[in-house]
């Protein structure tokens, strides 16, 4: 099944991005296709390459980048939400791309399911 995912909160402050990550990993393990992960609202902050969490903590951003690389995930950051919050090409982590809100609607149309993670 093709599943779209929307992540609406940034890393660490809320569990939303963690839960979305575990959900995506589990969906891939079960053989589903992740059509796209769309980052909106403060969720755009998951895509900054500048985070350096404490050594004993998970690295939320790198974990997304790695999963994208391993599974060819399409990680899309909303351009308008990103500009509001200072997430632009300059600080974009590997595996993410910046695009328009239309990519969210399109995921809703093309995927069989859309699951939203937020606050």
């Amino acid at each position, binding site marked *: 099944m093709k599943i779209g995912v929307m992540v609406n909160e940034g890393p660490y402050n809320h569990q939303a991005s963690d839960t979305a990550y575990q959900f995506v990993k589990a969906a891939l393990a079960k053989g589903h296709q992740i059509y796209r992960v769309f980052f909106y609202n403060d969720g755009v902050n998951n895509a900054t390459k500048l985070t350096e969490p404490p050594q004993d903590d998970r690295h939320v951003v790198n974990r997304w980048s790695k999963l994208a690389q391993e599974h060819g995930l399409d990680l899309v950051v909303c351009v*308008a939400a990103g500009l509001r919050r200072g997430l632009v090409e300059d600080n974009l982590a590997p595996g993410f791309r910046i695009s328009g809100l239309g990519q969210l*609607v399109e995921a809703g149309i093309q995927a069989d399911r859309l699951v939203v993670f937020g606050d």
Partner: protein
Amino acid sequence: MDLDEGASGVVKKFMYVNRKAPYGTIYALEGLEVVLISAAFDQDVSLAFLDDGVYQLVKGQQTRGIEVKNFSPTYRALEGYDIEKLYVERESLEARGLTEGELIVPVEVMGRDEIVRRMEEQDVVIAF
């Protein structure tokens, strides 16, 4: 924006569920931005306003004092985008002492059971 897919012929029922008050958080505004974009995709779009989401539609919002943009007039522009299904939950209005006449835009006020019935018909529900 990639609009190619809008022409693919798939028409799904999208409902945007608005449950949050305006200004205290950005969800109402950025939710509205999704709604406006979705108009370009020729889908069957509806908006439901329940819980504190009904506050988004209250007339007379004046945001000069908080220096934040008043986006409430945008709801009146939705009709121009062919987004005409605005459902407001009666129970949510009543709990807040609001009446249909106090809303900035024409809506269909309906009971919770009817809201639930329409939610269940959807293909995609995005709630803010």
